[in-house]
């Protein structure tokens, strides 16, 4: 069960990030979990609750958002969201595709908590990343 290892990494990352944000009490962790990440959500929840005991995260809630598998179909020349992680076929035309655009991620997306007074750097970074993201696909 590697969810325990993953919960450790998640807690470590969240503590680090909360520290550099000057966030005082973390209330919730928002995690994006791809359907192809190979992680069992319930096991991660369970492991997380165990791992955070006695850490600055104690009492924090883990909020997991499932990310469906999105592939690129070369026939349709479109991004397609798969209803299930399998089969790896375009749901519209049935063409097989190995080009996975989303669905493998395991990402700490956001932290919710009470912020310290100063640090506004994270907001600037957010903007920079967001504008990068808005570039059209391809």
């Amino acid at each position: 069960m590697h969810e325990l290892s993953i919960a450790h990494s998640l807690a470590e990352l969240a503590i680090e990030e909360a520290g550099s944000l000057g966030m005082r009490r973390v209330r919730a962790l928002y995690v994006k979990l791809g359907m192809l990440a190979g992680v069992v959500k319930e096991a991660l929840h369970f492991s997380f609750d165990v791992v955070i005991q006695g850490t600055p995260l104690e009492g924090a809630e883990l909020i997991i958002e499932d990310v469906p598998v999105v592939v690129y179909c070369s026939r349709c020349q479109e991004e397609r969201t798969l209803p299930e992680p399998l089969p790896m076929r375009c749901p519209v035309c049935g063409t097989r595709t190995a080009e996975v655009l989303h669905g493998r991620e395991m990402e700490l997306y956001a932290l919710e908590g009470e912020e310290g007074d100063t640090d506004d750097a994270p907001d600037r970074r957010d903007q920079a990343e967001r504008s990068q993201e808005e570039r059209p696909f391809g």
Partner: protein
Amino acid sequence: MMPRIVEIRQNVLKKNDLLARELRERFREAGVFVVNLVSSPGTGKTTLLREMLLRLGERYRVAALVGDLATENDAQRLRESGAQVRQITTGTVCHLEAEMIGRALEGWNLEELDFLFIENVGNLVCPASYDLGENQRAVLFSVTEGEDKPLKYPTIVNSADVAIVTKIDLAEPVGFQRDRFYEALHEARPGLPVFEVSVRTGEGMSAWLAHVEAGRQALRERVAWT
């Protein structure tokens, strides 16, 4: 003070990924080609690896790292090939991580190696999430495991660069349905190259070894070019 939500957007396994990237860079600089073998317990990783070390060892400098929960047995079996072998005993951890690879390599001069093979812990789930800095991830299935196994483990199949079907000498006795297996594999990962091998009879070994050698050659050409 009002609670706020702040975007973080960091990969949960960032640490492992960074270490894996460093390893990959070290391997590239040293010119060593690295293959990570992943499968269920008992699929035949050690048996295949021993044969690979023996055969490739005639012409190349080869070494292996072996992950196992508890014993040193697999490392002992591999050392019979004459190659340098180190065991990584993971205890309760069901997969290898980049950090374990880094530690296991301490004191080894990678410049003196052409190939490094890593036998992962026998497990088709957990190793999928951990990049070890390898050049190729090979997922192994034996003919005795059932044809639809790839569908049960889509994550590992999807993250693999090549698939190997082991114990092909047993295909007939166990009634292995080749078409069904390929169908299942390619539903999980279209286009994944497959090699069928038997260490018992030697069937398919030279094609698989040629693939590994070609991988190393391609890597070296890329390095020379950059």
